[in-house]
């Protein structure tokens, strides 16, 4: 393996119904179609070296999912972004590609799991059709006022009760549909549902065990304030990353990979993973 690329991708619109397995198959095929020289594991049944950091549940849209690909040759991340995106069905979209610093001589090897450690929390948006903004706001206030809210859910280890309040870093109702949002909503608007009441929640939730998922929060809202949306909520993960203590928001988890590498990048070269058109990527520097 010569180069490792970290990829941020989105799952949008009707493709939010893909499961994690569906996505991994689609990515493997897209990698082949795009002619990206992916590395394979050794052994009887070689697998392409593609690994995933978590994954939004089936039915949940996301603007910020992450995977990592190992390549046998160095490739320009910007081209990989474009080629891979073109090879995937639209709705599975490649947002960002950054090379992983493989470390220079003398550096400690990159710790496995280090990247997932950066994904401390997720920012979610939940669209609740048929729920008025004031009902939602009241429920949110009750939720935030509580010290702990126990919900019950079937986990892999059986039925479990756990607190959902502590993991919630922020929760608020947000005004209307943000403009330019491509993730979903078009279809319903077309159906004329847009005139009906609709509340939007935004929240930042820490990753913990057992995972507190958006539907757990909705369960919590039902417990504290009887909030019961009449139709299934539309959930979108907007971001994942390290919690920024100052702003309360999330930083881009790919930023550390973008840091200019020792002398290689030289003056004026942009972040390694994100060359603007006409700009040379600093791939060589990174993988040297």
């Amino acid at each position, binding site marked *: 393996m010569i180069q490792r690329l970290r990829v941020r991708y989105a799952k949008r619109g009707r493709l939010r*119904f893909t499961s994690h397995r569906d996505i991994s*198959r*689609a990515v493997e095929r897209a990698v082949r*179609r795009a002619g990206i020289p992916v590395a*394979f594991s050794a052994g009887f049944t*070689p697998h392409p070296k593609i690994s995933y950091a978590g994954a939004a549940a*089936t*039915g949940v849209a996301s603007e910020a999912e992450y995977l990592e690909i190992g390549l046998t040759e160095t490739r320009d991340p910007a081209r990989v972004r474009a080629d891979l995106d073109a090879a995937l069905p639209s709705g599975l979209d490649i947002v960002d590609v950054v090379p992983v610093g493989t470390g220079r001589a003398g550096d400690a090897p990159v710790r496995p799991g280090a990247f997932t450690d950066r994904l401390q929390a997720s920012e979610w948006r939940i669209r609740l059709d048929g729920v008025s903004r004031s009902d939602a706001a009241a429920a949110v206030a009750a939720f935030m006022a509580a010290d702990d809210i126990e919900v019950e859910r079937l986990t892999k280890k059986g039925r479990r009760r756990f607190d959902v309040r502590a993991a919630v870093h922020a929760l608020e109702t947000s005004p209307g549909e943000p403009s330019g949002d491509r993730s979903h909503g078009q279809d319903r608007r077309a*159906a004329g549902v847009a005139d009906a009441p609709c509340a939007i929640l935004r929240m930042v939730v820490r990753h913990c065990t057992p995972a507190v998922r958006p539907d757990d929060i909705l369960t919590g809202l039902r417990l504290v304030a009887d909030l019961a949306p009449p*139709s299934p909520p539309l959930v979108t993960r907007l971001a994942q990353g390290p919690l920024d203590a100052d702003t309360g928001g999330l930083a881009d988890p790919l930023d550390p990979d973008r840091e200019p590498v020792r002398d290689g990048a030289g003056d004026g070269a942009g972040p390694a993973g994100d060359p603007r058109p006409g700009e040379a990527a600093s791939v060589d520097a990174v993988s040297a």
Partner: protein
Amino acid sequence: MPVQSIFPRLEPLLPRVQKPIQYVGGELNSQVKDWDEAEVRWALMYPDAYEVGLPNQGVQILYEILNERDGVLAERTYSVWPDMEAVMRENGIPQFTVDAHRPVAAFDVFGVSFSTELGYTNLLTALDLAGIPLESADRTDEHPIVLAGGHAAFNPEPIADFLDAAVLGDGEEIALAITEVVREWKAEGSPGGRDELLLRLASSGGVYVPRFYDVSYLPDGRIQRVAPARPGVPWRVEKHTVMDLDQWPYPKKPLVPLAETVHERFSVEIFRGCTRGCRFCQAGMITRPVRERSITTIGEMVDQGLRESGFQEVGLLSLSSADHSEIGDVAKGLADRYEGTNTSLSLPSTRVDAFNITLANEFSRGGRRSGLTFAPEGGSERMRKVINKMVTEDDLIRTVTTAYENGWRQVKLYFMCGLPTEEDEDVLAIADMAKRVIRAGREATGRRDIRCTVSIGGFVPKPHTPFQWAAQCDHETVDRRLRALKDALRGDREYGRAIGLRYHDGQPSIVEGLLSRGDRRVGRVIRAVWEDGGRFDGWSEHFSYERWTACAAEVFAGEPVDLDWYTVREREEVEVLPWDHLDAGLDREWLWQDWRDAVDGTEVEDCRWTPCYDCGVCPTMGTEIQIGPTGRRLLPLSVV
């Protein structure tokens, strides 16, 4: 009239159903054409779950060919699972296409592909959900023409009342021809309505329109005759045969689903037809003659298909793939070309006698040697003579020994139970064969980890085969023989643990038998079963034998026929069979002679290699065998 997508209404309901991804479409290489620009619109259906139906080549080919034409639009639809059916009924959502989520009832033609009869109840679900009257007689000009194709359409009589039309054989050319008829008729302002359109289709000679044929019965229940009910309608409807497969290199852009399906590979049909003459094999009989794709076309199709799909596996598909006249060069050429690219090749449907180890080695080059599959079909030499599967036990042992020597550890053997003239000992012979296989493997390799899996299914006599006259074996006998086989294997201390046995019980085969050789009267049973909740009969978890027997008993009460009459009854030469007016090209006398030869254990040769044995197909259909070798080689393309 603009046709609206039902997706906005469907979307909020999707979180309530299993595997919602199967209903959203958006597969790679799928297309959505403009509704209003199209003059003729097809909805194509594979009447099984998406995971089974999507990979179906027949539907993919027609979808692509139709969409390539200007003014023609084709979309796909599949059977929805019962959970989705309930949600759709509750919310008034009609059967929809996955491409643009348009209601199926809005299309001109609703083409349904039947590779198995067990999809019949699913047809009724789709029609009902679509809001199309179940019976052809109740439809109006508003409704699409409901058209069946695929192998099961060679006897569409059990579903005749639900169909407007059926097509026998290869669909490429006839689908386009039908499109032209519909286009013209629409352009003329749809004169004479639905009836006139069907008449135009029927009088072309290549489309069967059941309502234009009257069936009369004898007092004892047998058919008296089937005759055209209208002037201009032919007495017999012929099957279609595409003669130059190199001219039809489809699919060019295989559909690549997001959802997981049963067949995750790119398949190329390397030839159509099979003249081995296995007497149980309907596919072999109805797809004659053999027509090969040339090595160069195969090479180009594989290259293009892989590039378009990103699949990691190529399947070379046909009824007996090792029989292609240049299979060795095809295999070597492809193995060379894709060496080191982690692309695997597979060769389904290999016959024991055609197997050669060089070929198998090419296919598994650089990869795993997981398992090899052979289909002796009959356990005893005598049984194999009856079914004309010309392979001796020594052949088989030689073949598997070579395979084990070459590194394979696992061999799968396919058999059938309940074949004509079968006795208990013929089935028990399977156990002896399996033990010999293990013994040979252990001797050849000196290892103990040699395995063999015996897979066995119930035999169902099919129309247009020499066994169309045969009595189907009752399910009690089939089950008894299978139990005896199981005991013989399990009880064996030396070999028992090395041999796996997979089998299905006999009851579903009886229902398949009813649907395969049924006539129009069986339609009422299908309807009764469907009304009683029958769905997905090909799935053991949904299939209910009791429901089928109860409905059959109810429907046939007071009639001279019953379930047994259709299944376990042997027919005589003079009996009019429900499909006699549907012409697969096979000469009836030749089939009858072959049936008598079967009972006597006389074999026939393969007409591909030895002189024609006069099955009648070529002269009747104006076709001929098309095989290589072309002598050409595959160019080693560089893969990126």
